[in-house]
């Protein structure tokens, strides 16, 4: 999802009898739904996995501003522009909450930026797809934020206190994101023939990349088993993907749009929709850096960081000067 395929210790879950007393006490707290706080003892694997997961999530929020930022100057009305600006501004905030939560685990902000900018850290594959038309702003809010919400709602109950509290704040803000997206989709789908075609085209392009957001099936993954035992992952990728499909199909029907999957059908027996899996080879290629926009996205991030250096330095210089001035006044 926003954190796709986070590697854990790679060793699976340690059986209780092989745990140290500290590890046992730690697992007991988690099993009792107690939150772990930054100063509490925690296994190194828990700390490392969480740093990976939360920073990946944070990077996704930050890089996720770019595909939508692309349309701020070209929004069709002043109202739509203000809404889109507010949404992108929220995503910057989400990145900030999450970076701060990761910092409580002992990694610095600069280290995380370095990992993102060097390509060492990943962000969600979805943001490596282009946003070609205004209808894409609708599809992104509806599907991409919709998928993000699916993943983030259960994470409000995650075991690490700062992460859980960041998720609670984020979830409160996400509802507006999905609704403004669906609102755009309604306008387009119920508009002229050309608008309707744009809406359908946006759905066609974003459907499978949205399904990829949940990551490949992880029902047999040792990484996921450990993360679930630690309650830093609550549901399997397949569970969340199924929930997303079940929720989204009626929404597409209401719009009069067709999900680009000829095999999609309601399964009376399971009580869920059967659907076609996305192309996982494409997914792995995008993760490797070969998606349609990887270079552009990372390039934009690095450029913003480097070209903003003089400004950050200017602010620090100003703060130092002001402090010196205050010290001089105090000494008089």
């Amino acid at each position: 999802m926003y954190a796709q395929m986070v590697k854990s210790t790679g060793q699976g879950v340690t059986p209780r009898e092989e745990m140290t007393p500290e590890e046992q006490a730690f697992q007991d707290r988690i099993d009792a739904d107690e939150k772990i706080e930054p100063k509490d003892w925690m296994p190194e694997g828990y700390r490392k996995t969480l740093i990976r997961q939360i920073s990946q999530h944070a990077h996704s929020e930050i890089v996720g501003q770019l595909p939508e930022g692309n349309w701020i100057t070209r929004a069709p009305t002043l109202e739509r522009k203000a809404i889109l600006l507010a949404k992108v501004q929220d995503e910057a905030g989400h990145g900030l909450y999450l970076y701060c939560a990761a910092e409580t685990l002992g990694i610095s902000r600069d280290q995380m930026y370095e990992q993102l900018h060097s390509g060492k850290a990943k962000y969600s594959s979805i943001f490596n797809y282009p946003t070609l038309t205004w209808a894409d702003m609708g599809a992104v809010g509806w599907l991409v934020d919709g998928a993000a919400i699916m993943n983030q709602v259960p994470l409000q109950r995650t075991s690490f206190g700062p992460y859980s509290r960041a998720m609670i704040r984020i979830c409160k803000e996400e509802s507006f994101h999905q609704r403004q997206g669906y609102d755009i989709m309604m306008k387009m789908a119920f508009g002229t023939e050309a608008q309707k075609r744009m809406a359908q085209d946006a759905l066609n392009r974003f459907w499978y990349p949205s399904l990829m957001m949940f990551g490949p099936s992880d029902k047999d993954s040792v990484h996921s088993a450990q993360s679930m035992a630690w309650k830093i992952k609550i549901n399997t990728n397949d569970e969340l993907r199924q929930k997303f499909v079940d929720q989204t199909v009626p929404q597409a029907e209401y719009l009069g749009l067709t999900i680009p999957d000829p095999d999609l059908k309601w399964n009376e027996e399971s009580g869920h929709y059967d659907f076609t899996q996305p192309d996982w080879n494409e997914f792995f290629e995008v993760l490797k850096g070969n998606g349609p926009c990887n270079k552009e996205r990372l390039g934009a991030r690095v450029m913003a960081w480097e070209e903003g250096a003089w400004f950050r330095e200017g602010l620090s210089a100003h703060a130092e000067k002001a402090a010196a001035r205050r010290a001089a006044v105090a000494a008089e």
Partner: protein
Amino acid sequence: MSSEWPLWEVFIRGQHGLNHRHVGSLHAPDAEMAINNARDVYTRRNEGVSIWVVKADDITASSPSDKGPLFEPSNSKVYRHPTFYDIPDEVGKM
């Protein structure tokens, strides 16, 4: 008296998982004593699972007279709220 103890602001986490909340302040000679005193003053009835103390001098607060310029701009941005959008009931909760 020149050696008055500094003022500390006290924050208590009431329950596991919740944010620390400001509950009040007290004087103490150092951080450790401030925590001890906060325990005695603010958690006598088991009100908390964790205490933070911060020197009041280290807190910078917005000034009440800035309330307008700081917070009024968000009044007009009703579109930041989910209720701004009419989403039909048929499509489920969003």
